[in-house]
């Protein structure tokens, strides 16, 4: 039965999309969208890209313009949710009031994993998660500033590229032996590393940041092998933790995030969870996963909205991701695991690459840099019935477009 009232906690990519999709699907009941950050809901990806470069006006960072909320009859509640009363179907807010729900959607996202080292509280040590973080960082990157980036994940590297473009001296410390070790294959990681080195970024792999020095303000960092590096600014991106506090205190099942089933329902059938905060059984890996991407948040939001309007299929949207670093447009279609093999395809352009990921003989993901056409095609192929075999892809003349023209019988979408 379609609920009469929906409360959404968290107005990031997922929460805002859930409200939008409910209205697009014809939902006529009340929608309250609880937003716990200052200002109007905004997009995160540009924070470490165009916004940080100063190329995006502030109002273009917003997920929706101010008038949208009234026009779509979405009640934007500027407050934090502090507790869920499941028996009474109520969400309590920090300001003292409460919201009643027939259905509750938790879209609380994730928080930065804090640096577990002495000195992490010093001025000039900044994570990159919120608009406030980006505003603070934008004021501090200048030519000649010495920046240490802890963690060579996507966000750390996007920041590194921007800082290097501003003439800062950038040094990246990473525990693993290559950048983005969890997210992309070795060849793709090395391609990206080389590009950063050309921009003047220095890397130390297999290297922990063990302490941050300074009095009041950061002046340097210490590394696992006992070196001291000077630093005016330390930016960390060492992973995120799902924001499960509300769910946990309400007694919902937690398993690397708020545990949901293949319909994105939590252990309470009147509560769904989506986005960075939720772990779900993946139709693509067969295991339980928690993904941190815009695609994941918005496709899950659409799924929950459709379900509340009566649809009854399981969630199986194909994951995809993008990251912009300098002149590199990195795109990933599908979902690979660290153990999946990689076949690098020869491409004519020097500043581009295309890597196919295989689980056994099955194509599971395609990583591209500056090959947007391959990315779009890969999404179609992966959503369809089958891709090229590892042998086909290994042929020196292999090209995804030509393969698709010849054999791609995949249903389109």
């Amino acid at each position, binding site marked *: 039965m379609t609920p009469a009232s929906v409360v959404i906690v968290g107005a990031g990519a997922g929460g805002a999309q859930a409200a*939008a999709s409910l*209205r*697009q699907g014809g939902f006529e009941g009340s929608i309250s969208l609880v937003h716990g950050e200052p200002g109007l809901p905004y*997009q995160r*990806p*540009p924070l470490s890209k165009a916004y940080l470069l100063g190329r995006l006006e502030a109002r*273009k960072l917003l997920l*929706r*313009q101010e008038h*949208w909320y009234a*026009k*779509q009859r979405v009640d934007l509640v500027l407050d934090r949710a502090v507790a869920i009363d499941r028996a009474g179907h109520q969400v309590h807010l920090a300001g003292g009031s409460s919201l009643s729900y027939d259905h509750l959607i938790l879209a609380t996202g994730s928080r930065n994993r804090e640096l577990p080292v002495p000195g992490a509280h010093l001025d000039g040590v900044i994570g990159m998660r919120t608009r406030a973080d980006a505003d603070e960082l934008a004021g501090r990157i200048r030519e000649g500033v010495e920046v240490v980036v802890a963690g060579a994940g996507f966000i750390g590297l996007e920041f590194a590229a921007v800082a290097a473009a501003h003439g800062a001296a950038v040094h990246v410390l990473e525990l693993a032996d290559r950048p983005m070790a969890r997210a992309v294959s070795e060849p793709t990681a090395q391609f990206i590393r080389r590009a950063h080195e050309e921009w003047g970024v220095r890397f130390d792999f297999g290297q922990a940041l063990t302490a941050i020095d300074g009095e009041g303000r950061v002046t340097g960092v210490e590394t696992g092998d006992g070196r001291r590096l000077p630093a005016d600014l330390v930016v960390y991106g060492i992973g995120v933790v799902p924001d499960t506090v509300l769910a946990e205190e309400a007694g919902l099942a937690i398993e690397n995030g708020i545990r949901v089933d293949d319909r994105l329902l939590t252990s309470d059938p009147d509560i769904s969870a989506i986005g960075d905060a939720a772990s779900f059984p993946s139709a693509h890996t067969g295991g339980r996963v928690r993904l941190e991407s*815009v*695609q994941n948040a*918005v496709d899950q939001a659409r799924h929950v909205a459709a379900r509340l309007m009566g649809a009854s299929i399981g969630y199986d949207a194909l994951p*995809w991701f*993008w990251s*912009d670093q300098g002149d590199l*447009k990195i*795109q990933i279609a599908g979902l690979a695991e660290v153990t999946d093999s990689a076949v690098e395809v020869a491409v004519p352009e020097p500043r581009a690459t295309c890597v196919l990921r295989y689980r056994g003989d099955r194509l599971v993901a395609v990583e591209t840099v500056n*090959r*947007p*056409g*391959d*990315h*779009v*095609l890969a999404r*179609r192929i992966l959503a369809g019935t089958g891709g090229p075999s590892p042998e086909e892809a290994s042929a020196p003349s292999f090209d995804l*477009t030509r393969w*698709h023209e010849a054999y791609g019988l995949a249903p*389109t*979408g």
Partner: protein
Amino acid sequence: MNVTFTLQDQTSRTVEAEPGWKLMEVAVDNAIPGIDGDCGGEAACATCHVYVAPEWRDATGERTDLEQAMLASTFGVRENSRLSCQIETSEELDGLSVEVVGS
């Protein structure tokens, strides 16, 4: 200025747009179904595909290189296909008419 979107169910919606916004942003802001703009306008996702009405093709200009590469592999692409995140609205485009393709 006004823009008219023809939706997948063949109904039309005319909305007001402030010049300087991308067509995708105008659509999202007006809750036009079938235009998602998931990547926020980076030509990274192809979820804002439209067909531009023939009489507006010149005024809306050429595809960008990135857009061209994305569209070349997109299902349902036609000569008048554009990613609406790559079209900026202006007074010269008052009356613009596009058809939503959807993904």
